[in-house]
């Protein structure tokens, strides 16, 4: 059998690889990891499976990308990053991947996505979230992106968040 590229395997099999125990682990940890000396043992005890089994499955979900990472998510407002600009760019579709990879690699960009335009109201197809301590800092970072894009920047704007209306994170039903 010819081996398939890893990306193809990942794309088509990650979901199929999740069984009931994986889903129980996800439900048990989506609100967070317990602050006890042996957190994975605590989850295992709660689910009635072996701790080694929980750790093995978590490692596999990290490898397949079902878990992006295990760690802390800071509230960037509290950290002093008060200005959060969603910069949006109209770039040629045939170059969006090349340019998206360049912009995503910048230190100042936390998320970078290709998204569909909604003409005529919304001509932008590349989104890059830029964080700064104030709007001047965000604007300076946006200028860096504009320089990087050069003539591929056919128009851009920055949308600032003025209020968090809701923030609950993802929830999977048990």
């Amino acid at each position, binding site marked *: 059998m010819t081996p398939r590229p890893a990306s193809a395997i990942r794309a088509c099999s*990650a979901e199929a690889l*999740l069984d009931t125990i994986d889903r129980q682990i*996800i439900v048990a*940890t*989506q*609100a*967070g*990891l317990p*602050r*006890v*000396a042996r*957190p*994975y043992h605590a989850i295992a005890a709660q689910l009635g499976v072996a701790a080694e089994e929980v750790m093995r499955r978590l490692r596999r979900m990290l490898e*397949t*990308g079902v*878990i*992006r*990472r*295990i*760690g*802390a*998510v*800071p*509230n960037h407002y*509290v*950290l*002093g*990053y*008060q200005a959060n600009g969603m910069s949006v760019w109209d770039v040629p579709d045939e170059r*969006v*991947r090349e340019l998206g990879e360049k912009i*995503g*690699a910048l230190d*100042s*960009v*936390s*998320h*970078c*996505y*290709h*998204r*569909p335009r*909604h003409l005529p*109201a*919304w001509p932008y197809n590349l989104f890059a979230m830029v*964080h700064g*301590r104030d709007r001047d800092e965000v604007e300076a970072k946006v200028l860096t992106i504009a320089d990087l894009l050069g003539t591929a920047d056919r128009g851009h704007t920055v949308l*600032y*968040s*003025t*209020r968090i*209306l*809701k*923030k*609950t*994170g*993802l*929830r*999977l*039903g048990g």
Partner: protein
Amino acid sequence: METADGPSLARGPRTRVPDVPPITSPIGDALDRAIINNLQGGFPVCEEPYREVAVQLGTTADELMRRLDALLASGTLSRFGPMYHAERLGGGLTLAAMQIPPDDFERVAAIVNAFPEVAHNYAREHALNMWFVLATETPERIGQVIAAIERDTGYMVHNMPKREEFFVGLRFEV
């Protein structure tokens, strides 16, 4: 102002200039900052992960867990645990935007936020002034929720699912 004698801080009453721009809300002490910086990068899957991280940070597992509890309670950290990749769980995920007249904004925000599928919702400065993330158990459900939001609010929803995600490495250093 730079002079031949060096920066102007050497002269006059201003004898001290901070090394870094002032952060609006200073975060704890050196250990809190080390915890925030370190744990954004990942958390081990092993029998006693807090002890492993505590050793790197020069503290104890008990102190690390106590600090994490406090950082979560104060909202400095919004989450601590595994970050799941919604699409790879088999669910649906999208970003959507609406244009809401200011005098109807609160009513619509309440309706939109009441949908459990709305994970985040932000007010932004733009004609499209409400931006939210929808996370659903199945990809098909996205369209149903969008239709329900349009029906319940009376406003059009612009669906902007990501077509491609570009790698990003940002961490908030404190």
